[in-house]
């Protein structure tokens, strides 16, 4: 384990909470309510549930970063494996952001776009360091 890594995992926890809170901002920014009026009630409910579950998952990962930072920084084998999984998780999320999400819409919000990319890159780097520690 590298004790010097631990504060970086605490910061990763904060980053997860910020990303989770962005889900609430997105509802207004992208007018999800108006958008969802175009689809059936079932799809509308599924979308809301998806959002809730993603927020819950992000908050849970934040909790792991705060409470089990030493494990994630390499203190235990399981911690290194979880860090490996989370590095892959965020790497895939970065690829989706850059290759799949609407470039026109991203271009309309360049600051948010840059912040998201920076957050994803930070999380990938921290979890990769934990995975190989």
């Amino acid at each position, binding site marked *: 384990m590298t004790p010097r890594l631990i504060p970086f995992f605490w910061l990763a926890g904060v980053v997860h909470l910020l990303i989770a809170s962005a889900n609430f901002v997105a509802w207004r920014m992208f007018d999800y309510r108006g958008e969802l009026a175009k689809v059936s009630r079932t799809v509308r409910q599924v979308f809301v549930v998806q959002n809730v579950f993603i927020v819950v998952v992000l908050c849970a990962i934040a909790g792991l970063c705060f409470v089990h930072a030493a494990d994630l920084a390499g203190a235990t084998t*399981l911690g290194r494996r979880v860090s490996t999984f989370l590095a892959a998780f965020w790497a895939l999320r970065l690829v989706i952001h850059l290759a799949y999400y609407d470039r026109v819409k991203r271009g309309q919000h360049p600051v948010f776009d840059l912040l998201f990319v920076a957050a994803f890159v930070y999380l990938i780097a921290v979890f990769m360091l934990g995975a190989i520690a």
Partner: protein
Amino acid sequence: MRTFVIAAGFGQLALAAGSLAIPRVLGWREETARLRPLTRQVFWTYAAYIWCFNVSFGLVSTLVPHWLLDEVPLARAVAGFIAVYWAARVVVQFAWFDRQDMPAGAIYRAGEAALVALFVALVLVYGAVATGVRR
């Protein structure tokens, strides 16, 4: 407990396999075509991520159950998280999804009962692991 964790893993993998039919059954492609590109992309991305989580829980439980059964706090925390995840799914089933939209018929009722039974079983298994039951 190891047997229960492995069985729970198979349950989640079966659930993930079955849920691949949901987009077709509910017409997600046609429905989401009405949305703006970004909203549609967020919908599919989140759906894919949740599916991947379910598969990940299933794979860890079936292939390396000892990771979850390790006597370390992180293992308990991960098991506890999986228990809360599925408990939330039970709450959503009854408190959020509009039951008027449920298809009628005995086969659908039996399917829903089986689904809820699986969710509850997952909560019990991972909850037991999280609270320290090892035997």
